[in-house]
């Protein structure tokens, strides 16, 4: 069995098994939900109503009046106060992260904000500027262009993709990857062959290439200083010529390091001089290169001259080093962040979540940002943080089951499907006032034009924090677990956490039993489960449809046979006789009757020999067999077997012998008649 057939069978087997296994998962078998760790035994019994101690802390801090708030538990208040010191250390950790310089919007005076961030932050610069000094300069600079985010549009293709994904996602995936793997394997195989061939050619060329001489010194192999050192060493040992070679190489290396020269093994000192004359007309390096070249190729090398030249190289390289040190930093500095705007989706951007991730990573045993679709959660997941994700119904179901089993879900900001999954109702309301908590100094970066979102009014749940008369953070029991709602996901972004004690509150909101924490946001599921979804997300659907339409037009223009296997063409075969006649006619047109007759005779003899049952090679026997057949009324008749034998001989050799045309034609007529007679016999 060939290599490719074996490979295909193996891939088919693996793909089928994978498809079957994955299809079972995708077809609604409830995934294994991570069992959250049980709460510690010393949790106060009030945890039955507030299942998580963290939920109790903010509620204790929610001494702020709120129409919807339940009465804080004094025991929990005590618990909260005892942990405030620990929680407050969170802000110190955030401040040290900010000071590290990674978050340039806070520390870089040359930072540029996007317009949206400017609107959000700069209106309250006196309040926020103290904690984030770099912002003041950023607010003074012009904003980058900020294209409005487009709301994802639902498309028929995406709906189709979703429907198909539920049914045949695994099958599509298998076929797609299979095709990709086959193609890749084929390419790799071809590439390997090409590389092998190229290696053989190189090996042949290398074997023919003359070896470089011992005097050759590679100026790119070592730093200039080391080459110069070698030059000095050779001077001391008396090998002046070798010293000059090293000095030459050292000069080239130094010039290359300074960026003033491109060094290549095929360039001569003349080439370097011309290059330096263009780029550094006043530099003495060109002249020194030439002097070195002249010295090292001189038949007799003067040791003193070599020493002087080496010293000149040393002096020139020292000068280059000073230039490098002075100009180095500015020469090396490229575009600063201030000149190139930072992408708003970067984790360290003002709207990024890098600070939150650091904070959460310290809080949880393990922490990960979820990229793949939520078909299941890792075992040991004790908290899931949602930040305005875009999830499907199946994923909400997964989260619902997770919380019911005892998990802690922290949902910040709006998310389609959250309300229907957990039974919440109402639309978010804008905050009417800043968030105030007696135990926390909270600053929000919102301005008069851009405000935080609060939660929809809800009779259930335990209030954690409020912004004026609107709930901002609240926790709800759900099954064995609970859901903490935070009104606005922007509270968790870098700008927000950098301020006051916001990070401390954020930590309090996400506090959960030790375990794994998943961070789910708009980035979750940005990949595709199957090719159709990938196409839908990449917005090439219209182009593909266009292409399909053009192909259909092409098919229509080509006719019905396009794409269908066409019947094999009926190829009319010409008989040998026709070929022979055609060839004979060709020779006749050329006037070479003898050659035509000779070829005709060869064919005729073969036919007559077969049909008569006689020999094809023995003309005498053939003549004997044929001589007895006399056609009545025929003009040309051989005079017996001997005559026929002669006729056959001469006719077969007519190409070489030629002869009288009348005789040749007679021979032709006789043969033709015999052939016709036998041809008519079946």
């Amino acid at each position, binding site marked *: 069995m060939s290599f490719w057939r074996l490979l295909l069978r193996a891939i088919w087997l693996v793909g089928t098994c994978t498809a079957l296994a994955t299809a079972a998962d995708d077809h609604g078998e409830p995934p294994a939900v991570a069992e959250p760790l049980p709460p510690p035994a010393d949790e106060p019994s009030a945890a039955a109503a507030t299942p998580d101690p963290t939920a109790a802390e903010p509620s204790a801090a929610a001494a702020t009046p709120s129409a919807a708030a339940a009465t804080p538990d004094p025991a929990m208040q005590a618990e909260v106060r005892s942990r405030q010191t620990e929680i407050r250390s969170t802000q110190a950790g955030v401040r040290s992260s900010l000071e590290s310089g990674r978050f340039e919007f806070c520390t870089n005076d040359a930072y540029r904000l996007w317009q949206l961030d400017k609107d959000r932050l700069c209106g309250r610069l006196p309040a926020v500027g103290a904690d984030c000094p770099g912002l003041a300069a950023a607010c003074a600079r012009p904003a980058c262009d900020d294209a409005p985010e487009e709301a994802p549009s639902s498309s028929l293709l995406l709906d189709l993709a979703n429907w198909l994904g539920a049914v045949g996602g695994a099958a599509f995936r298998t076929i797609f990857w299979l095709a990709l793997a086959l193609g890749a394997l084929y390419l790799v195989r071809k590439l390997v062959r090409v590389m092998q061939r190229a290696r053989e050619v190189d090996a042949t*060329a290398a074997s023919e290439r003359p070896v470089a*001489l011992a005097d050759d010194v590679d100026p790119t192999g070592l730093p200039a200083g080391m080459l110069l050192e070698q030059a000095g060493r050779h001077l001391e040992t008396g090998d002046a010529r070798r010293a000059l070679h090293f000095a030459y190489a050292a000069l080239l290396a130094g010039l290359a390091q300074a960026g003033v020269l491109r060094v290549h093994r*095929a360039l001569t000192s003349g080439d370097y001089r011309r290059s330096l004359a263009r780029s550094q007309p006043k530099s003495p390096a060109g002249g020194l290169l030439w002097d070195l070249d002249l010295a090292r190729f001189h038949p007799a090398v003067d040791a003193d001259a070599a020493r002087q030249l080496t010293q000149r190289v040393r002096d020139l390289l020292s000068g280059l080093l000073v230039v490098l040190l002075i100009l180095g930093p500015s020469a090396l500095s490229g575009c600063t962040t201030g000149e190139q705007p930072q992408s708003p989706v970067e984790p360290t951007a003002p709207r990024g979540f890098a600070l939150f991730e650091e904070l959460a990573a310290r809080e949880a045993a393990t922490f990960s940002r979820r990229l793949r679709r939520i078909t299941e959660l890792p075992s040991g997941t004790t908290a899931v943080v949602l930040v305005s994700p875009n999830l499907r119904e199946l994923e909400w179901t997964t989260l619902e089951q997770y919380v019911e089993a005892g998990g802690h879900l922290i949902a910040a900001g709006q998310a389609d499907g959250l309300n229907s999954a957990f039974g919440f109702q109402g639309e978010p309301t804008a905050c009417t006032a800043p968030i105030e908590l007696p135990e926390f100094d909270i600053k929000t970066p919102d301005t008069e034009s851009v405000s935080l979102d609060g939660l929809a009014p809800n009779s259930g749940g335990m209030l954690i924090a409020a912004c004026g008369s609107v709930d901002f953070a609240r926790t709800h029991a759900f099954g064995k677990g609970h859901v903490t709602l935070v009104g606005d996901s922007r509270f968790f972004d870098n700008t927000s956490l950098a301020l006051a004690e916001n990070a401390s509150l954020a930590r309090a909101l996400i506090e959960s039993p030790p375990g794994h924490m998943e961070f789910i946001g708009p980035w979750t599921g940005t990949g595709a489960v199957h090719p159709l979804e990938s196409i839908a997300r990449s917005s090439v659907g219209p182009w593909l449809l266009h292409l399909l339409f053009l192909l259909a037009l092409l098919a229509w223009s080509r006719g019905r046979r396009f794409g269908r296997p066409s019947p094999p063409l009926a190829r009319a075969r010409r008989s040998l006789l026709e070929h022979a006649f055609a060839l004979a006619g060709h020779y006749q047109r050329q006037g070479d009757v003898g050659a035509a007759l000779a070829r005709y005779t060869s064919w005729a003899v073969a036919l007559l020999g077969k049909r008569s049952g006689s020999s094809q090679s023995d003309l005498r026997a053939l003549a004997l067999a044929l001589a007895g057949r006399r056609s009545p009324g025929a003009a040309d008749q051989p005079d017996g077997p001997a005559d026929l034998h002669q006729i056959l001989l001469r006719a077969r050799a007519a190409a070489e012998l030629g002869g009288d045309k009348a005789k040749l034609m007679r021979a032709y007529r006789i043969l033709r008649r015999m052939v016709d007679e036998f041809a008519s016999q079946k």
Partner: protein
Amino acid sequence: MQLQEYREIHQRLLTRISSVLLGQEEVTLHVLAALLSGGHILIEGVPGLGKTLLVRVLSRVLGCEFRRIQFTPDLMPSDVTGGNVWNAKQGTFDFHAGPVFAELLLADEINRAPAKTQSALLEAMQERAVTIDGATRTLPQPFLVLATQNPIESQGTYPLPEAQLDRFLLKVNVSYPTLDVEKELLVACAAGFDAERLQVEGVIDRTTLLEMQAVPKTVEVSPPIIDYIARIVAATRSHRAIEVGASPRASIGLFRVARAAAAADGRGFVVPDDVKGFARAVLRHRIVLHPDSGIEGVTADDVIASILAETSVPGAAA
């Protein structure tokens, strides 16, 4: 003659020729290098670039006898070499020397003459003697041929066969002058310059020329330079774009010219720049490109440039 004196004379020759032939310094350098190496030169360029003027000026400054042959399709070999003519009065054959018996011969548009006539000249170039009716007659010393070709005409031309092209030490391409040079030329014309009535003082004479031709032979060539020359020429035999590479005659030619270049600089030794500077002129007419390369527009100069860019210079491995 010493190297210093050689250098000075060379500089004077260069200056004198450049004063007449504007904007063709590189061409003049190449021509002088070939002449002083004792080699023949093939000059290719469109009409009107001063090829004939160059040779005439050369003959004046070198103090050599100058003859010109205009090659035409009806030119006979005897028109080049000369022949025996019957003298009826004396009843003997008198030998009438052809224009080839000159010290500096301009073979204008050599590709317009049939192969038989071309070969008559080429034989003279190689042997420095002509054989007419069994008698061999030596050509004068020095004997230098400058042949010209017009690259734009293909009708009615007889391209020199590759084997014959090898006889030329250098092939020099003359190109259009720059705008500034052309303006300078017009200014000179306005001032009364007339190429037809050229008055150029000689710089040297024939004897000095012969002495100068002996000087490059004293220039030393170190083993690394010899290796460099050999590698460059060898590379033409394995390059993918070249069907027929350069022969050892090319190596010898490059060797000679490099020495002349070094001597012109007043040096008694050759440096890699001398070799690289003349490699193109020595090799461009000695290689035969693949037909594919011609179709793709690759020229011999491009190929040689790529070879030079790949061949490592002695003393600088990488």
